[in-house]
């Protein structure tokens, strides 16, 4: 199996695919996302050039790029970016702690898991946007509102992933733990949780995108600052290229956040991939 895990190797990474060595030219790892990005931009420009949608509503890449660059120089943009990202990450952290925490509790005491099951299933499908008006009444406009909405948007996904992951522990691992004399909590903490991290991280990745979405949605509906509010503002002032530039920023934020989560996954659960690699195809 392919071995380049983001480490700096030279361009001709030796790839082992299906047991055969392949010496075809391979781009370095950092270049590949750029190629994809370029492809996406070309696709966008092609769609714009077909003229199906007038350019004032769907601007071409040059117009959006110009607006993007202009924003990078604006102080209020960076202020808004910092606010939105900090809100999203704060809510995500809180959701991870509470989601994994409750899942662990539920894995130890089945009663807790069964009690929370209907609630978590219901909440997964509730759009956070629908809760914003009630939440304003309860929490006012401010940090508490954002934290709650983002926490709500993330926690059920992470909880569901964690529950599923903990349930799926390999019996072999559990038996081994018991034969070592581990009690129930130790078994959970030392064996089942580490084994569950990969799937939990998949849930966290999904929730991370949700946290950004929820932050932007809350800022658009009840916000007074942040990227969501700026998005609303540019749309109502009919500054369409700026609006699309902000959307591009949101996409990049997502990539960045996802990258952070993947890095974390490698540190916490990287041994999993190593194991698969070693047993290697």
């Amino acid at each position, binding site marked *: 199996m392919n071995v380049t895990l983001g480490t700096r190797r030279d361009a001709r990474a030796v790839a082992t695919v299906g047991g055969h060595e392949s010496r075809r030219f391979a781009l370095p790892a950092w270049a590949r996302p750029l190629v994809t990005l370029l492809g996406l931009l070309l696709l966008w420009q092609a769609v714009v050039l077909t003229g199906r*949608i*007038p350019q004032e*509503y769907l601007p071409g890449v040059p117009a959006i790029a110009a607006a993007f660059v202009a924003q990078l120089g604006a102080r209020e943009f960076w202020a808004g970016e910092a606010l939105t990202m900090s809100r999203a990450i704060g809510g995500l952290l809180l959701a991870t702690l509470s989601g994994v925490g409750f899942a662990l509790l539920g894995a130890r005491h089945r009663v807790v898991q069964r009690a929370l099951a209907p609630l978590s299933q219901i909440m997964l499908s509730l759009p956070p946007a629908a809760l*914003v*008006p009630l939440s*304003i*009444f*309860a*929490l*006012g*406009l*401010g940090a508490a509102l954002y934290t709650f909405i983002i926490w709500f948007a993330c926690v059920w996904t992470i909880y569901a992933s964690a529950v599923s992951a903990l349930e799926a522990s390999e019996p072999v691992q559990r038996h081994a733990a018991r034969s070592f004399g581990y009690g129930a909590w130790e078994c959970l903490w030392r064996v089942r949780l580490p084994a569950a991290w990969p799937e939990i991280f998949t849930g966290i990745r999904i929730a991370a995108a949700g946290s950004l979405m929820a932050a932007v949605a809350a*800022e*658009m*509906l*009840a*916000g*007074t600052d942040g990227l969501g*509010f700026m998005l*609303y*503002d540019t*749309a*109502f*002032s*009919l*500054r369409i290229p700026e609006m699309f530039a902000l959307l591009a920023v949101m996409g990049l934020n997502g990539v960045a956040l996802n990258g952070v989560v993947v890095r974390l996954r490698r540190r916490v659960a990287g041994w999993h991939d190593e194991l698969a690699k070693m047993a290697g195809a």
Partner: protein
Amino acid sequence: MKLMLPIRALLAAACLGLLSPGAFAQTAVKVAGLRTIALLPVQHAARQGYFKREGLDVEIIAVGAGPAVISAVTSGSAQIGYTASVPVLFARAQNQPVRIFDAFTYETNQADGQWTWLVASEKSGIKSVKDLAGRTLAMNATGAVCELQFREHMAKAGVSFDAAKKIVVPFPQMQAALQLGNADAACVVEPFRTNMKVSPEIRARTLASGVLADQSQRYTLDVLFVREDWGRANLDTLRRFNRGLMSALDDFNRDKAAFRKMITDEFKLNPTVVSLMKSDLEFTALQTSAQEIKPLLDGLQRHGLLKAALKPEDVILKVQ
């Protein structure tokens, strides 16, 4: 000895200063409002220090949606709210404790005395409200001002509103909807209306203006409101707020160009659009009365959009 006199004078001045009303903690007031041009006078007053002069420390929170503004006020996150009158009427009808004390925009039957329009693109071929029969209408929300406006004018022309198709899109997307043919006519406000007029692809034609068909009694559109208990307990604060705001409105009354410049700068709109659009707020008076709320209330009830029996006097808070 000669130095003592200036020092005594200084001490005396300091004592007087300490005794004067605005010297200690100023009353903190948060104003939550929709981010439209009518919020600019409030911002101007805050920036020029007119509120500070009255002993008020005003913080302005711009919010994206009307219901959010009302929730902010009822929850106590903000003390004063600014939004369109119709959401406030709906809230009041559901026993939310809000009361209107000022109005910013009115509609009258004078020429160019309106703030809302029904428009159609040139290529749709629609020339009057009568031609709207069975066509597709674009509104920014259902059951609110836009729907009332369509119903009023279509009823006057003898055309059925229910038989027409409707789509709901936010104002920024209405122009796209008209241009792409997703809609034939739209209910719009500034700056979208001027933008559509000058756009060569749309060349919007005005079919009707004003929310109500009968504008002989002038009625409010955008209002300032408070939560009832806070408002009654702080009438003096509201009077001071009004004085500060009137100073800002006086500035704009003297210099309308300055107001337009503020619009261009704040919203980064196209200056041409700003020079063409309607932007003269009611700069001379703030207080509103039950008489000016009544026409909208009647209109909403007439078309079944508001079912509660609400009296205009129950919506107003008299400040002066």
